[in-house]
């Protein structure tokens, strides 16, 4: 009997467990301050390279006096570039220790091995290199060489000549040269039959890629593209072997796994379970990587990732649940951060379906539905989100968060906004609201928290009754593409660039290939036309401001804001500069990572 009693002890403790559970949930609802400092740091760096940030007006006159030739010296770009032929990537800390296995907890499912076709770059990024990369040494604030040694550009930003590193080899021993770059870029721009290029949309400006010699390539662009190097830092811009591409007709989806030049080589993997990468002893950066290898454990959900770190099964995860993040924050041996990311939370309007074809209706919703209430509501079970306008937080062109917090529609106090929204509804012929339908994914955070919250506010503020249609995530793309929706909570816009031109051009231009809200605004199209050829950063800022004003008046979607990630790691993880990062990343190469233990 005593054994049996012992067996039932856990049951008697359920009350206590429940209390603990409730405490954890309560802890999750604490308000987390927006990391404004991160944004400020970003602006400071931009000023160093003469790209105006928030103080545009003050500096405007000064910049106007710069001669055209001056612009050639400092090409305008959203992200500053470091072009030092002697630049060598390394850990910032002195005397980094060598050896050890770095353990990361992330989802390790991948749909293909070809990153251009949806392959999980978040898992296999360390196997590859890109031409250029964001600089891990300064918290991803600048662009630095990767497979490229140096680059030259013309004053009109229409030609970029890249000088490639020599003596770089793939893990299979084959040498890297200009042919690899040409083959990869051509595949991205004009994929062979049956190959889908996720990078195609961002490379529309590229007219041709030409080989000058074995270690020099020239990009000729059809439009001035001051942010061109930033395009090349995107996760899927990895350089595969020309030989391997040719051997597989340009389709690497089923090749386990294509060779790369990266700091770590593929060792082993078990689907939905783990990946093992071992260090590349022939890596072209002297002294790197510091680690012996990387073990990636499968942690699908954010709580799993968080508990993996909290229980010492992983050293790091790039995005953990709020509850585990809070637990980590309390621990002396663990650090946490909140880093902005470049995708957004929205509810798409089908701009072609009445009454959402009426800008007054869309603006009424933009004004009346509180972003703050939604974010606070879903943050405990989903992810933090900044209240932003149409540009992600880390972009130098973004409106400051402080200013946004006072703007109609974005501000927390809804009294005036709801009154104006109701006036617009009445003007549009819907003083008492209307019935509609909202599509939402079947994931609990979306279907059970975020969408009901939105629907509730829509109803209370404007009398709009939205029936929720829950769909499976995999059908989401088809529904958006077919237009079989009125409102859609699964929609997201974003990209990999801090310069928002391409993002807007792909998602909001009339007839654009990712314009799933079917938005059309001639004024915004005109702004985009001007942006396509504009080099002057001041004028670009003005045009982006104009574009944002247009979308505030005539919203293409109900935009809640751009998201943030919640990384968590042990203090002994060094070389990543996670605390000072201006931008979230899930495609780190771990080449400068080392373990202080």
């Amino acid at each position, binding site marked *: 009997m005593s054994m049996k009693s012992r067996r039932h002890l856990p049951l008697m403790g359920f009350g206590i467990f429940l209390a603990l559970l409730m405490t954890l949930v309560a802890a999750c609802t604490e308000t987390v301050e927006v990391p404004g400092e991160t944004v400020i740091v970003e602006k400071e760096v931009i000023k160093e390279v003469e790209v105006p940030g928030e103080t545009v007006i003050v500096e405007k006159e000064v910049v106007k006096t710069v001669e055209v030739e001056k612009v050639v010296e400092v090409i305008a770009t959203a992200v500053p570039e470091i072009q030092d032929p002697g630049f060598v990537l390394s850990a910032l800390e002195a005397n980094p220790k060598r050896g050890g296995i770095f353990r990361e907890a992330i989802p390790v499912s991948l*749909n293909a091995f070809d990153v251009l076709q949806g392959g999980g770059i978040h898992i296999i990024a360390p196997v590859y290199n890109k031409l250029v990369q964001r600089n891990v040494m300064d918290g991803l604030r600048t662009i630095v060489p990767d497979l490229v040694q140096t680059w030259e550009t013309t004053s009109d930003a229409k030609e970029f000549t890249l000088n490639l590193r020599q003596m770089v080899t793939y893990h299979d021993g084959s040498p890297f040269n200009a042919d690899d770059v040409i083959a990869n870029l051509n595949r991205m721009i004009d994929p062979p*039959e049956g190959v889908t290029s*996720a990078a195609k949309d961002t490379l529309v400006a590229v007219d041709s890629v030409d080989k000058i010699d074995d270690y020099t390539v020239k990009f000729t662009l059809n439009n001035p593209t001051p942010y061109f190097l930033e395009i090349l830092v995107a996760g899927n811009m990895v350089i595969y072997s020309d030989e391997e591409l040719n051997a597989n007709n340009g389709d690497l989806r089923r090749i386990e796994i294509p060779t790369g030049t990266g700091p770590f080589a593929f060792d082993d993997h078990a689907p939905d379970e783990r990946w093992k990468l071992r260090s590349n002893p022939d890596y072209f950066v002297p002294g790197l990587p510091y680690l012996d290898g990387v073990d990636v454990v499968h942690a699908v959900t954010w709580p799993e990732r968080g508990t993996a770190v909290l229980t010492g099964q992983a050293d790091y995860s*790039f995005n953990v649940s709020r509850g585990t993040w809070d637990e980590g924050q309390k621990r002396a041996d663990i650090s946490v951060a909140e880093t902005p*990311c470049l995708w957004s939370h929205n509810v798409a309007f089908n701009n072609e379906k009445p009454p959402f074809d009426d800008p007054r209706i869309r603006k009424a919703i933009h004004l009346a539905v509180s972003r703050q209430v939604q974010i606070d509501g879903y943050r405990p079970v989903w992810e933090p989100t900044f209240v932003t306008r149409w540009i992600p937080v880390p972009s130098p062109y973004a409106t400051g968060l402080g200013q946004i917090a006072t703007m109609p529609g974005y501000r927390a106090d809804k009294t005036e906004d709801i009154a104006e929204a109701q006036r617009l509804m009445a003007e549009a012929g819907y003083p008492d609201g209307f019935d509609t339908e909202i599509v939402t994914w079947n994931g609990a955070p979306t279907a059970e928290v975020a969408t009901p919250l939105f629907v509730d506010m829509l109803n209370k503020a404007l009398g709009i009754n939205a029936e929720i249609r829950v769909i499976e995530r*995999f059908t989401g793309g*088809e529904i958006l593409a077919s237009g079989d929706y009125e409102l859609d909570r699964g929609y997201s816009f974003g990209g990999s660039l801090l310069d928002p031109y391409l993002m807007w051009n792909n998602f909001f231009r009339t007839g654009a290939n990712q314009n799933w809200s079917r938005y059309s605004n001639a004024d915004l199209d005109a702004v985009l036309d001007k942006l396509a050829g504009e080099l002057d950063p001041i004028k670009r800022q003005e045009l982006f401001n104009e574009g944002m004003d247009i979308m505030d008046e005539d919203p293409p979607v109900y935009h809640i804001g751009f998201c943030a990630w919640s990384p968590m790691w042990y203090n002994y993880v060094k070389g990543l500069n996670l605390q000072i990062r201006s931008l979230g990343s899930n495609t780190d190469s771990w080449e400068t990572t080392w373990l202080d233990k």
Partner: protein
Amino acid sequence: MGSTPRASPSLQCLTGDTNNAMRTYVIQRLLLAIPTLFGITVLIFVAMRVLPGDPLKTIYFEGGGARILSEEEYLEARKNLGLDRPLYIQYADWMIDVFRGDMGRSFWHQKPIRETIQRRGTITVEYALLAVILSWVVGLPVGLIAAVWRNSWVDYVVRFFVTLFMAIPSFWLGLTVILITVLVWSWRPPLGIVHLWDNPVQNMQIILGPAIVIGVAMGAILARMARATLLEVFREDYVRTARSKGLAERLVVVRHALRNAILPVLTISGLQLAALLGGSVAVERAFSVPGLGFALVKGIQERDWVIVQNVVLLYGVVFVFINLAIDLAYGFLDPRIRYG
């Protein structure tokens, strides 16, 4: 059909006639399994293809965002993967793979399905068997005690806990256990798969959680079933006769009553095992155990037709054989039952 149980007064089990009858019965059952399994293959093959949602249509990026393919891109992607071929050719290809024992490769990650089933099925079989054993170890004695001391305080306490454990969802129990171990001891079972022969301690850490929470729930059902059937058997004439001739109560219960009461318990337990071998997805998710059930659900979500088809077919085979095994076990447990 010749499958009707036939009473025999004899305790003789394995005579030549009985063996032949048993063999005929087994062959008949196996032959009947063929159309059943064929039906399963057709059903799952068609079902996966008529489900709305094609993963090729959209490329999702981890961490956010998606790129929806144009119609031309989508059709090319399908063609490239051989999905534009007639369905009967795709079905025939699959059947050829199955008969080769190959089962093909995952649509997405290209790992052989056979390897996935071996690797992940092992862990599922482990916790399923352990759960069944646990359910017997806990459920049968508890049911027995409740039946012997029926309507006493012991019976009330047992019934309370049995009802409680039947009512509590196993996945909730699993989540609670994980939450406590993480928050109180900063410990959780290892993520991933560690096989028994690689590291027995870690293997046990992985499978014990699911085995216990499922085993307790199954044990509760068994206890209830055992109590009910025992109470019924206690009222039988042969039990009364055993008592009246002065047999010790322990022998009456164990030798006469329990042996006859165990058949329905065995049936329930066999079906539970078959269901568990299919994987308890919710519990696997709660404990982050990458078992076969989770592989199936993920395959369905990602429309990985190859893995779904093969795992469902495997479940069909498992169900057929476990049902057959239960039927055959009747013959050994109850001398009155023979097949002919």
